[in-house]
């Protein structure tokens, strides 16, 4: 029954040959077979610094003005946006807000930790006074009457919302080609996709058009573009960040996530937006630790700063169907973690390949319901019609793109009487199995690692007409959403492709509400990764932060 959305490639996951069994020793030895990817690394190699902390310090010390910072980012944005098409809307009050920050600093007022920080916001996150279309024609020119809780918290922290980033319509896609308005390109190679659905947010941070950005992650929409664009992407635990103001795609899977050029920046961003919200009944009352507190650089001096941590490599993610160069990058990353003191072992999660079909059923089902409100009656762009059914039909036919229509149809089918048990209910059962398997694996390991995507960024148009191939690309990420646990993706190497090579992301998966551990490990990993810079050449010349 599930085969309706199952790509033949998945059967390959089930057929594991004994050759693919790696012991931790085998992983270590794989270090010797590091492929050509390392040769692709850029020569300049200082580890990434937190842009937020740097800017914050400079502003407070008076070394630099917020207006100058904003000016720099805006000019880079203007210079690159025609090429990257990452923003759908750019605020015209950025400089004015930056001036406000400057005058407050001059007066000696308390400014928030994000004062003067330019944040890009994915277009499906509601912003007062700025259009929010979720990349859809049906919401063209729609401006919400309120700020999403996450946006409100950013503003409370002093952040400046620079604009709205492009995305696959309603988050449904893995390339950002599904936007109704424009195709975003990858800053590493503009003939390639930035990933999706938060492609605009990932490309914007990668090209330093803004300091950090918000995305949303339903099945990998933060992590996969982070991997494709060589930035850090964080998908928090379900419930950690309020969804109020996030236009729902699949409510039980959606989370607002963070993009940054360093782990520290994503941590600071996460801290700003986390915590219970009385407007979201599914937001957690779990205490929010200060994710920023752990960036203590002294532990980097130790030879084994991560001593005693258990890292599990998910065997099923390094198997047939995954790009060989990506596999070697992950193996290299695993040995890097071992060098840092982790004990790395292999973990088998037999249910892993079940996640994809279950995800596509659940996400489509929920989206078919969540998108019912776009009927042309109260907002959006209604079509003139003589009677009600054609008003609905025409508004939705004109307003939605083909991918969205396909998923609404799929979801409507899966929830229909007589099919519910075979699809939705079974998918929920699979979800429970996956949750259990993650619980077990994370009881035995501190974190799990895997690639963030089976390949690096591919060409624009390459998978546009092959939805199953595109869906298959989500195999690495969807299970994490089904389990509701947090995951951090950070660049760990390069593979061949494009003018200078293409970044590869390492996915670290942690236990629910333990983002702290992920961020700590991610930070140390990032700061000790030798010989790689993840600043795309496109902006390398004018960015020196």
């Amino acid at each position, binding site marked *: 029954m599930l085969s309706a959305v199952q790509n033949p490639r998945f059967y390959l996951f089930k057929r594991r040959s004994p050759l693919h069994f790696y012991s931790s020793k085998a992983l270590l030895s794989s270090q010797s077979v590091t492929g050509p990817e390392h040769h692709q690394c850029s020569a300049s190699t200082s580890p990434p610094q937190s842009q937020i902390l740097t800017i914050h310090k400079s502003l407070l010390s008076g070394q630099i003005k917020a207006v100058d910072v904003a000016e720099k980012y805006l000019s880079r944005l203007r210079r690159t946006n025609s090429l990257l098409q990452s923003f759908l809307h750019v605020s015209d009050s950025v400089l004015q807000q930056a001036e406000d920050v400057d005058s407050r600093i001059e007066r000696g007022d308390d400014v928030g930790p994000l004062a003067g920080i330019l944040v890009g916001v994915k277009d499906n996150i509601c912003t007062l006074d700025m259009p929010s279309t979720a990349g859809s024609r049906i919401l063209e020119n729609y401006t919400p009457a309120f700020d999403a809780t996450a946006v409100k918290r950013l503003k409370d922290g002093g952040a400046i919302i620079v604009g709205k980033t492009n995305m696959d319509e309603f988050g449904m896609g893995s390339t950002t080609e599904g936007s109704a308005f424009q195709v975003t390109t990858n800053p590493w190679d503009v003939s390639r996709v930035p990933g999706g659905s938060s492609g605009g947010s990932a490309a914007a941070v990668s090209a330093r058009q803004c300091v950090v950005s918000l995305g949303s992650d339903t099945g990998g929409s933060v992590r996969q573009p982070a991997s494709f664009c060589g930035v850090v992407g964080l998908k928090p635990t379900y419930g950690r960040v309020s969804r109020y103001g996030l236009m729902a795609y699949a409510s039980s899977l959606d989370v607002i996530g963070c993009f940054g050029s360093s782990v520290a920046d994503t941590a600071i961003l996460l801290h700003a937006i986390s915590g219970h919200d009385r*407007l979201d009944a599914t937001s957690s009352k779990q205490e929010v630790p200060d994710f920023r507190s752990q960036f203590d650089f002294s532990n980097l001096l130790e030879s084994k700063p991560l001593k005693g941590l258990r890292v599990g490599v998910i065997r099923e993610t390094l198997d047939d169907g995954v790009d060989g160069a990506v596999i070697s990058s992950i193996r290299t990353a695993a040995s890097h973690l071992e060098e840092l003191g982790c004990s790395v072992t292999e973990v088998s999660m037999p249910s892993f390949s079940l996640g994809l079909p279950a995800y596509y059923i659940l996400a489509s089902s929920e989206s078919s319901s969540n998108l019912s409100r776009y009927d042309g009656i109260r907002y959006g762009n209604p079509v003139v019609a003589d009677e009600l059914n054609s008003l609905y039909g025409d508004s939705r036919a004109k307003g939605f793109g083909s991918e969205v229509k396909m998923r609404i149809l799929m979801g409507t089918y899966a929830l229909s009487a007589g099919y519910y048990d075979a699809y939705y209910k079974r998918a929920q059962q699979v979800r429970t199995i996956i949750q259990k398997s993650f619980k077990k694996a994370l009881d035995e390991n501190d974190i799990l690692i895997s690639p963030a995507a089976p390949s690096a960024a591919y060409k624009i148009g390459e998978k546009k007409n092959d939805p199953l191939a595109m869906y298959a690309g989500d195999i690495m990420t969807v299970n994490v959403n089904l389990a509701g646990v947090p995951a951090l993706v950070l660049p760990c190497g390069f593979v061949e492709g494009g003018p200078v090579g293409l970044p590869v992301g390492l996915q670290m998966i942690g236990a629910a509400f333990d983002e702290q551990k992920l961020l700590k490990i991610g930070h140390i990993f990032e700061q000790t990764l030798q010989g790689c810079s993840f600043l795309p050449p496109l902006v390398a010349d004018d960015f020196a932060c």
Partner: protein
Amino acid sequence: MASVLFRGIQTHPFLLYRSALFTTKKAVPYCRMECTQVQTATQDNPKSQTKISSTNPNKTLNKLMENYEAIIGIETHVQLSTLTKAFCNCPYNYGSQPNTSICPICMGLPGTLPVLNSKIIEFAVKVGLALNCNLSLNSKFDRKQYFYPDLPKGYQISQFDVPIASGGFIDLDLPVEFGGGHRRFGITRVHMEEDAGKLLHAGEGSYSQVDLNRAGVPLLEIVSEPDMRSGIEAAEYAAELQRLVRYLGVSNGNMQEGSLRCDVNVSVRPIGQSEFGTKREMRIILDVEVKNLNSFSSMNRAIDYEISRQVALHSQGQCDQIVQETRLWEEGAQRTVTMRKKEGLSDYRYFPEPDLPEVILSQEYVDNIRNSLPELPEKKRRRYEKMGLSMQDVLFLANDLNVAAFFDATIGKDADVKLAANWIMGDIAAYMKNERVSVDEIKLTPEELAELISSIKGGTISGKIGKEILFELMSKGGTVKGLIEEKDLVQIVDPVEVEKMVDKVLSENPKQLQQYRGGKTKLQGFFAGQVMKASKGKANPALLNKILLEKLNDKS
């Protein structure tokens, strides 16, 4: 023939409860149509008695009625009187300007999420317990999906397979004038859901407007078992639900405002068929839904009309014309007409609402609510019955929570039960009706009513005087004692004083006295009246009569 019969029924609704359907058994071509005035229902429809002539088929129909029985199930929507809507902070006030009680959440704007108002759970548990249901300690919300402009999200948040309460029953007593009798009707389930908005249709019908004030207002849907067999039973079931929610304080239960809405499913089957039919099959024949029932009496009439319509079709072998459909009750024409045919079952594609956590009740929470429940109508009626009141009195007093409270407070002051009931049901009820006030609005307190009753019983004042000051007490307030003193109304019980008055009257009417003594003893009433008048109504009547009689017959 059949069409004649059918048309006759369409235009002339029959009364179908057994005792009054046809006033004659055979051959007399009359049947009496009576609006079933539900004793407990609001007095919205004056009794209209029309004699309609109907031709021979009457006899047939009469016979047919005996061969069929109606199966009636009712879905009731009760609007909960919470301060704010179910999932947002908007207040709801009936009748406010369109779209003035709305916010991004109840408008279903993109990105908004529902957060449950916990008062709804409390109200649902109260109703569940009051209806003797089993509560689900773990229940959840589901989405019921359909498109309509008054439904902003494109789905209604409701409960599907796990309602908060199920498997209960409700007890009630039918009004005495309808033959009385105790009934117990099953309650299938009680679940929580949100209301939709309203469509306002423009005069020429060229466009419609949407008012979302009501969208997101909390409802309880109460589904009965198909246990009712007649219009009056159904109407009384609804009236009892209204009493119940008012007693519990969870809803104003006002039908005109739509706070209590009933959708009725009616079908008929030949008597005896139930023995062969399973429960599932019975569900299937519950096929005609009647809407637009704005009062208990219209419910009663609509159902009885619908039963007769279906029986007529059955009897003509036209069962196939009874289709699954929604019919609209036309109050003016007193008939039901097709509103829309249901083609197959609607597929609402229910699935669990992912935006709301599960509803988990602790036993302690339920027990606390159980212990705080007020005395419910059924229990009150049984208590009043035990006090020796007639069923008519019991039903009247227990019908309205405030009246019952007034009565209870009065007898709590040791007033005579029967007298208290009589005063409340008689003069006080009449006054409330005339002045259009509720029992809370009259100035009379239960304490003073008790005082009044004991003053009469104890002979301080006469019943007549009592009546007079009652009106004063109701309209202006004050105390019985104060009024008696102020107006010098104490009954004259001193025989010497009464004798003086009798003597005076006798001496002033020598002619009449002579006639009396001449044998015209009827004149005693005349003398009694004169003496009473002279005493300004204060003379004790028994004493007066005793002395008067002595004097009249004293021929010396």
